[in-house]
């Protein structure tokens, strides 16, 4: 396996430039023709602590972080030591070199910065190196960088050393550094890159191990894109020009990308006092005739519960994004989890409804964000893009052509003044905004915008008559409620008929099925391929439409297999619960594989979980995942 892929981990302290270095390295590998997938792990602190990024690069498609890694560049945490007292801050140990060493594959390579790290402080290090046939290179990158004037350049030195050891052409890195770096810092960086490369080539046996970069080629132009990028660009392409928000990890990424881009598109971004205000601003802008969005993560989204219900009752289109992180409460701010599904589906009082998409990949993040706007504005209903820290932060290569789509600035079911003049008004002259339709209609009554002549109406969170006046009339209540709920059936029909389905993968007539949602999709698909290669018969369905739920498609999938393992990143099997609630049967066929330790699934978790629990019907040996058997099992 070592020759098929490089899984390169760069580890160091937060604030040491790990993220930007790895991003550039990933882009260079993509440009060289490889497929890449990055996984970020970072603590909730600004400087210091232990952070790492893994880049998996292969000529074959990559859908997950993979299992473990085979190349470690341990740079050390320059903020960990207090130079005055030679002490550690907090409980930080020399983690960049010691943490998760179990996951370094046999025959793997370690470069560590001996200027910051001392391997002799790690118990049994030498024994483990020997046992696992690891190849260790201790290089004083820090001193080398200091000699070039800037200590932070030990990142570049580490990349140079990596290139020498993994046989990566420096040209790709140089080209990228030239694109990305300002003149002033480019020169010393190029120098140190070469110096480290040459030094390793000359002084070490670079062929002692067999971790080498694979060769690949793309048949079309690629872009390196994260889930957060894709959501922002999906919104922009769908004509969204107003965003309001309050910073909260990991939603901040989408907010920041939008904020940086909207002014040059003539749009408006507002950082406001809290999340209630943020969602309310999005509603106000949408009411006034602009495509608008807001969003947050768990705790912030909780505050949006009331404006969300108001959007539904006033039939004001709006898109909210919810970036899940581990909970409850503030939980683990920088760690992925899929625990907000029920929160997003059911928050807000009364019979309130919203449309929920949960994209499984970066490409889906783009298309489904566009769809979320389209549905919201066509049907005048809040729609939500639910994703998690993993999807938001993972960088993958996507064909650039995926984004080559026409913009759609349509405000959906919104009238022009000419159309308003012909539309029904009540005898007071007020526009019949919430007019009664018939049970055959789709529940949508077109709206007007303040400032349009003859279109005035009252939007209210109370139950209301066709022109908007508050009413507690029983007949009107039933009419309006039925009308709002009819939209859901129409939306389900539209989603079923739009040619884009939830994602099936594997052998059609497989014996076993995996059901999953959101960002776990790619990892499950990779596990499906491995299991089929190993002689099992499995397939998967990645569901990305949460509400209205694709009952027919999921039912068909469950019926087509003997047993289903539902894979999700939370402790209470929320997606399995939703599936059982919506389908109302087959509970005995669904068991769960759960992971909620702050790290996303690796393909091996799923392979093993399946083999042990489903095939062997044994107790689950893992501490990383948890098996919950089917009802009545």
């Amino acid at each position: 396996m070592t020759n098929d892929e490089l899984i390169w981990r760069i580890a160091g302290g937060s604030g040491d430039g790990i993220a930007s270095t790895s991003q550039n390295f990933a882009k260079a590998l993509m440009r060289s023709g490889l497929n890449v997938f990055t996984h970020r792990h970072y603590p909730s602190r600004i400087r210091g602590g232990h952070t790492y990024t893994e880049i998996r690069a292969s000529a074959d498609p990559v859908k997950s972080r993979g299992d473990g890694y085979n190349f470690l560049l341990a740079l050390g945490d320059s903020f960990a030591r207090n130079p005055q007292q030679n002490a550690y801050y907090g409980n930080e140990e020399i983690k960049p070199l010691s943490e998760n060493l179990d996951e370094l594959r046999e025959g793997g390579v370690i470069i560590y910065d001996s200027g910051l790290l001392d391997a002799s402080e790690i118990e049994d290090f030498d024994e483990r190196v020997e046992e696992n046939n690891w190849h260790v290179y201790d290089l004083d990158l820090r001193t080398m960088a200091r000699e070039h004037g800037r200590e932070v350049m030990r990142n570049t030195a580490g990349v140079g050393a990596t290139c020498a050891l993994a046989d990566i052409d420096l040209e790709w890195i140089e080209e990228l550094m030239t694109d990305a770096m300002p003149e002033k810092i480019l020169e010393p960086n190029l120098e140190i890159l070469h110096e480290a490369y040459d030094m390793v080539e000359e002084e070490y046996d670079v062929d002692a191990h067999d971790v080498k970069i694979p060769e690949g080629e793309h048949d079309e132009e690629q872009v390196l894109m994260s889930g957060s990028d894709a959501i922002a660009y999906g919104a922009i392409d769908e004509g969204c020009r107003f965003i309001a928000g309050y910073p909260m990890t990991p939603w901040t990424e989408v907010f920041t990308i939008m904020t940086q881009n909207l002014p040059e598109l003539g749009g408006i971004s507002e950082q406001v006092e809290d999340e209630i205000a943020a969602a309310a601003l999005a509603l106000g802008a949408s009411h006034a005739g602009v495509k608008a969005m807001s969003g947050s993560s768990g705790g912030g989204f909780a505050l949006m519960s009331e404006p969300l219900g108001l959007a539904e009752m006033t039939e004001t289109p709006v898109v909210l994004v919810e970036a899940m992180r581990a909970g409850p409460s503030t939980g683990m701010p920088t760690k992925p989890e899929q625990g907000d599904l029920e929160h997003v589906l059911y928050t807000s009082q009364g019979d309130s409804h919203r449309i929920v998409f949960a994209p499984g990949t970066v490409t889906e993040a783009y298309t489904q964000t566009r769809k979320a706007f389209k549905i919201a504005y066509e049907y005048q209903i809040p729609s939500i893009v639910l994703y998690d820290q993993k999807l938001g932060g993972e960088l993958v290569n996507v064909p650039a052509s995926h984004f080559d789509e026409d913009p759609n600035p349509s405000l959906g079911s919104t009238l022009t003044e000419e159309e308003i003049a012909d539309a029904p008004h009540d005898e007071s002259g007020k526009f019949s905004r919430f007019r009664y339709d018939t049970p055959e209609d789709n529940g949508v009554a077109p709206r007007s915008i303040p400032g349009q002549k003859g279109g005035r109406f009252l939007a209210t969170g109370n139950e209301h008559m066709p022109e908007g006046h508050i009413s507690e009339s029983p007949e009107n209540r039933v009419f309006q409620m039925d009308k709002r709920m009819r939209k859901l059936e129409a939306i389900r029909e539209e989603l079923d008929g739009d040619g884009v389905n939830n994602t099936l993968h594997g052998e059609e007539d497989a014996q076993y099925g995996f059901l999953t949602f959101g960002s776990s999709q790619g990892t499950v698909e990779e596990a499906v391929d491995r299991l089929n290669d190993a002689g099992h018969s499995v397939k998967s369905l990645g569901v990305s439409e949460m509400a209205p739920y694709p009952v027919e498609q999921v039912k068909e999938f469950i019926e087509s297999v003997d047993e289903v393992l539902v894979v999700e990143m939370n402790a209470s099997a929320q997606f399995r619960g939703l599936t059982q609630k919506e389908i109302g049967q087959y509970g005995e066929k669904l068991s769960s594989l759960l992971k909620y330790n702050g790290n996303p699934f690796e393909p091996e978790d799923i392979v093993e979980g399946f083999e042990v629990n489903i095939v062997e019907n044994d107790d689950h040996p893992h501490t990383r995942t948890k098996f919950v058997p089917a009802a009545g099992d």
Partner: protein
Amino acid sequence: MSAFSAIGEGKEIDRNDYTPGLEPQATWCPGCGDFGVLKALKGAAAELGKSPDEMLLVTGIGCSGKLNSYFESYGFHTIHGRSLPIARAAKLANPGVEVVAAGGDGDGYGIGGNHFMHSARENHDMTYIVFNNEIFGLTKGQTSPTSPMGHKSKTQPHGSAKQPLRPLSLSLTSGASYIARTAAVNPNQAKDIIVEAMEHDGFSHVDFLTQCPTWNKDARQYVPYIDVQDSEDYDFDNTDRREAAEMMHETEDALHEGKVLTGRYYVDSDRPSYQEEKQRIGEMPEEPLAERYFDDSYEWERSYDQFLDKHK
């Protein structure tokens, strides 16, 4: 041609144009101060020649929130305390629309206090009318943020141990650029102040004293009132921040001693509105954003042409 032809139409408007054709029976109690706000708002809108189609009235929850049902215009009756963020976004989206937000003292100074502070700080170009009756009315008589210390109610049976909030001082500190207090018992001044507030380019805060004859029988009914601009006893420069602050303190101290002072407390005509500031730094288009969605000739930018290069 504008998609919003009602904006700036400038035709002759009669105050009765703001009366809904199918007027629901007003559900305010007889003698309620809220009638005074409605009357003043109608008078002000007529005097300014704003047509009902170019006005957006955004209200919170409570008796004050019902203003929307009795005033003919575009309306958004929102949720408790949240009228301001909805109103200010609507103004940013389409600055030509005349945006007025209204709510009660519980709505605006209690649950929506954070929004009040920040809307004033940002100096959005809009008018905010707070119906201040020092009580929660629609939930039947609980103590509000402006109820005086010692005020007894069902939820404060031993009398309130809290100082009342000082809305004028809070507004000034937060950054509002037009601050006035008027009273339902003073209809002419009320109308004039709302006209000024709507004309002012920036955040105009009108603390509107509205008597609650049902739940606040103890409250002085804001009579006799004194207009600080008309009285010879009060001489201060309401364009001077410090003098305004001092006068506000005096006014707020006096209210619970039975002296009802009203008038214009602070007027800063020089400070640019938030919208102007945002346009100055290049974060807001000169043309109304909403207009663009109705312009078939507008060429919409897309990510593929604008941003993809940096990901290659």
